[in-house]
């Protein structure tokens, strides 16, 4: 097992296929092996101890036949002579060996499980933490299904390797070494045949590893495909039903499922090929050794007894060959999964956290903070410039509405301010401090963004609101809900604030979810609040409640509001009209309405929509 783990080839040149589509994120050369080593390195001592325990246990088990020999050779004559000592010694010795092998077995299983579980815990944590740091952009392309696959089925295959691998590997190495040595010691020729037979075995193992490694890489991709489709269907079950997608989905799922089934079958067939090949080599070698030995006996250059012993050991030499196959099998399966995990872990977080944080100046006067976009240019990594060059200053406490057509760059502006992304050039400053220099807790006390998608996590309503500020008391949570007009509907849920959003009667409409999202923001009490189309599902009274809350609870905060409803825009201090990443109009709502510009047109259309 000295070879390096199979690596994913780094994408070279212009990739015709997107690595995301292929579920084939490149990992730097050697990353897979490095990952496995770093996972195990913390447990080196414990792995060594486990191996030692296993060794001693094997010795205790092997003592059985020796004791049988001792009992017959010594115990019987002594007993006949009236000396019960040796028989008693055998009884005690056997008792001891039995107890020891049982105890060591117990210690080994528990110890190995501990190492195993710690490694898995570590790996799961790494995957999850890393995924949390990666950008929204990344997740939109990677999909939740693949991440689930990485954190569950891929981790599972490492678990298989760890739980059986150590025992098998130690057993295999031990048998091969000890028995080869014994054979060489008994007779050089017979031993040499055994050693020579390792060459074809080595070739066989190498080809098996290469072939099954490929199969497992396919399999890991295939199961992720199955999971992605599965998750997508379950999350969109309503439209699936309404548009009668069931049968089309069955057919699509069947294709993905079959691909996984096929890889699974391939892996098992590779194993079958390996078993046939390795057994053939082993059995041929045994026959060869017998023939060789028999002629040597005939020559008189080998004792009959030695050949008898050698013959018994020969068979046992090749016994662990199947176990080696099983080990290699789980090893390759784990390696393929680890390569995928390493590919994920190699993704650079779009917004790395600073190692030399600066702190924000204390707020003076208004609770809001000043926001400055200083020569900001932003382009998505996939290409296409979104903000060509952008300068903007928002004084503390100002409410700025941003309007413009889809694709004008409004959301990009919001995401830069919330530091979902970092600018390609230039800086975004909060009270003069670059966002990149703030720690996450500081940043989130400073800036909070509420988006259109009001996702609820499983858990209670209160817990969902408390995401805004995990240490909030129940009173504070209720106060936030009251301020946004969400208290009434929450109080009417079966268990009020303690209603589990997934359990009995916990159904919450889109509008209600947006209210919960606002309650979160109120609770977080940020200096700068960004609303990115966060009121779209609210009815008019709901929108009013939000405006009221912004006027009262959030008075004095800096706010950036992206909204289609000009009712929200009208209360802003200042309106920015964006087009193709540039600000084309900037002024108070009153002045812009009278100017003959873009905003005036929007405003007219909006007024028209209100009549009736």
């Amino acid at each position, binding site marked *: 097992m000295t070879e390096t783990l199979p690596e994913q080839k780094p994408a070279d040149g212009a990739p015709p296929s997107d690595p995301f589509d292929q579920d084939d994120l490149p990992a730097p050369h050697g990353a897979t092996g490095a990952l496995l080593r770093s996972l195990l390195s913390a447990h080196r001592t414990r792995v060594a101890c486990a191996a030692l325990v296993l060794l001693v246990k094997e010795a205790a088990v092997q003592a059985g*036949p020796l004791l049988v020999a001792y009992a*017959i050779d010594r115990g*019987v004559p002594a007993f006949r002579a009236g000396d019960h000592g040796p028989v008693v010694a055998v009884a005690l010795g056997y*008792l001891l060996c*039995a107890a020891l092998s049982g105890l060591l*077995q*117990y210690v080994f299983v*528990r110890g190995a*499980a*501990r190492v195993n*579980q710690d490694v898995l*815990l570590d790996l799961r*944590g790494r995957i999850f933490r890393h995924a*949390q740091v990666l950008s929204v952009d990344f997740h939109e392309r990677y999909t939740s299904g693949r991440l689930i*696959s990485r*954190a*569950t089925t891929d981790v599972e295959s490492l678990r298989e390797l760890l739980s059986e691998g150590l025992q098998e590997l130690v057993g295999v190495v031990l048998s091969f070494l000890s028995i080869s040595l014994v054979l060489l010691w008994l007779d050089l020729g017979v031993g040499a045949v055994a050693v020579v037979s390792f060459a074809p075995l080595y070739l066989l193992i190498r080809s098996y590893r290469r072939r099954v490694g490929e199969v497992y890489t396919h399999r890991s991709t295939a199961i992720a495909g199955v999971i*992605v489709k599965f998750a*997508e269907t*379950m999350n969109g079950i309503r*439209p699936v039903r*309404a*548009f009668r997608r*069931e049968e089309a*989905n069955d057919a699509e799922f069947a294709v993905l*499922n079959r691909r996984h089934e096929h890889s*699974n079958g391939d892996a098992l067939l590779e194993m*079958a*090929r390996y*078993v046939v090949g390795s*057994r053939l080599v*082993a059995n041929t070698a045994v*026959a060869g050794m*017998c023939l060789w*030995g*028999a002629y040597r006996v005939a020559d008189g250059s080998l004792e*009959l007894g030695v*050949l008898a012993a050698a013959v018994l050991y020969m*068979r046992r030499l090749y016994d662990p060959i199947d176990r080696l196959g099983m080990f290699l099998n789980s090893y390759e399966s784990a390696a393929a999964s680890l390569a995928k995990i390493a590919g994920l872990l190699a993704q650079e977080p779009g917004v790395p956290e600073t190692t030399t944080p600066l702190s924000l100046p204390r707020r003076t006067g208004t609770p809001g903070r000043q926001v400055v976009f200083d020569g900001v240019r932003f382009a998505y990594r996939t290409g296409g410039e979104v903000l060509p060059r952008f300068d903007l200053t928002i004084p503390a406490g100002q409410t700025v509405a941003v309007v413009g*057509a*889809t694709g004008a760059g409004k959301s990009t502006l919001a995401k830069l301010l*919330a530091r979902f992304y970092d600018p390609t050039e230039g800086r975004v400053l909060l009270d003069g401090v670059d966002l990149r220099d703030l720690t*996450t807790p500081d940043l*989130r006390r400073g800036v909070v963004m509420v988006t259109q998608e009001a*996702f609820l*996590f*499983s858990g209670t309503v209160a*817990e969902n609101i408390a*995401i805004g500020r995990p240490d909030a008391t129940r009173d504070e949570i209720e106060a936030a809900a009251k301020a946004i007009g969400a208290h009434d*509907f929450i109080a009417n849920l079966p268990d009020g604030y303690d209603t589990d959003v*997934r359990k009995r*009667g916990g159904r*919450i409409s889109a*509008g209600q979810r947006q209210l919960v999202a606002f309650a979160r923001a109120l609770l977080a009490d940020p200096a700068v609040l960004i609303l990115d189309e966060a009121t779209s*599902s609210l009815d*008019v*009274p709901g*929108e009013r409640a939000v405006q009221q809350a912004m006027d009262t609870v959030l008075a004095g905060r800096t706010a950036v509001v992206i909204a289609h409803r000009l009712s929200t825009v009208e209360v802003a201090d200042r309106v920015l009209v964006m087009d193709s990443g540039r600000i084309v109009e900037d002024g108070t709502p009153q002045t812009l309405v009278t100017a003959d510009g873009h905003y005036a047109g929007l405003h007219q259309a909006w007024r028209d*929509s209100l009549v*009736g």
Partner: protein
Amino acid sequence: MMPEMPVNPASAPKSPERSAVRVLLRLWPYVRPVRGRWLGAAVVAVVASCLSLVIPLVLKWMVDGPVAERDPGGVWRGALYLLLLGVAEALLFGFRRWLVARPLSAVEAGMRADLYRRLQRLPIAFHDRWASGQLLSRGTTDLMLVRMFLAFPLTFLLVNGVTILAGYVLLIAQDWSLGLVLLTPVLPLVIVCSMFETRYGTVARRAQDQVGDLTTVVEESVLGIRIVKGFGRHRSQAESFRALSERLRGTELVKARLLAMIWAVITVVPELAIGAALVLGTVQVADGDLSAGTLVAFLSTALALRWPVESIGFLLAMSQEAATATERYFEVMDAEEEPDTASPTASTEDGPGGVRFEGVTFRYPDAPDDAPPVLDGVDLHIRPGETLALVGGTGSGKTTLTALVPRLHEATGGRILLDGEDIALMERARLRTLVSMAFEEPTLFSASVGENVLMGAGETAAEPELERALGVAQADGFVGRLPEGSATQVGEQGLSLSGGQRQRLALARAVVGRPRFLILDDPLSALDVHTEARVEAALREVLRETTALVVAHRPSTVMLADRVALLSRGRIAAVGTHQELLRSSQEYAWLMSGENQEKR
């Protein structure tokens, strides 16, 4: 975010006396198609094991016979036999694996396909209750356990069982009194094993449920990534995840402790019996009651049985895990599919056309008993060709009412008639071709824009229909600018679109099939004013040809409709034109303008 509460309505196994065997027997329908191959493989495994036992005998015969007698011909013959036996053994080993390789993968895939099929057809209420992570873990890790069980423990429990039985017969034949000594541990071992099985089953089940919870948290962390990032909660999110994984680790360690214990017991107890037999045998040999050769033969047989006996511990553990996985699988498979009351000769009463709600009541099946019904006697008539706006406060049941028409939920009382036909008596598939919907949350699937839109139409729909629908939704412009136009992949695995763009595609999907009945749930909420105005203009043309129910939150959407119905406290409080309701209903005026505060 809050993983302390496992989201799993059926986490704990209910009946204490569930037996692993009975649960595993439920796999039979899936194994049945491959039973021939599986049995063949089991037989081959037994034969191969016997062959493996013969090879040492041939070796012994060679040493004692031809080699000792210096007979070169015999030596060659012996080596040839060995080679032949070896080749046969190798081929049988491979044959066994080859026999089951494809079939067992097929069993797993078949079970997964069935699960997926069933889940697609279970009531929406079922999906509301079950976190999708729990469903996913049933479809992945659980089924892998089942496949592994069929491939390995099931076969080897059989093979090892036969080996042990044969071994005991040999032992008792060799010396019955010593054989009885070796039989003594059987009873205590059986008792210990069955105790172990029950306890291990419970813990294995817990671990599997925890994997499901973990899956849920991973999924939610991606679906809610904007919230996590927007509030800078990735650390607390990671902590919750860690807490859950630590809980799983704890359970796994309990499992390991149980396994370690049973394994130790299974190792020690037979060893003790062998030790006792050794001592007794030695004494008997010394007394001359037994020959030394018999004792050696007896003990080597006993030692050869060591591995088959020891392996029973983890074979049982694996079987137990497979049993709980099977149990979890069937929890979903046993859930009742929606019965389809297909009556092809539908009662075409000569009732009034359009959509008619008659005393419709609805309460969610899982709602607490004391909770008031969501809909409590809704009477409403949408005339043929009419567009009716449905207005009501947040959480008044508007979305629920719309879900009743395509029977995503079933009305608990009253009936809904489409052109005089009771929908409860219609085949769902037919009903859903008549009724088309745009949901509050526009979900796109991983497919091209064109495929996503054309989902709403019959098989024959193609380019012209697509273009018309995109035009109605004012989506032709941005779709044309996508990298590959309407062939661009969108959805989870494709290009991500903005909320407004998705909403327009969902609208296009709803109208593409020119449905007889159209239901739009707040269809324009994410559009900017200009686009909204243009969509409204185009949508009016479509609405003229169809009977429509439009959930509206604001006056601009209400403007699409001919009349408006106000839903309040589970009933229709008022019906009329926008102007009439503005005058007659304070609640309506408040909902539309946000003013008129005396209502609150």
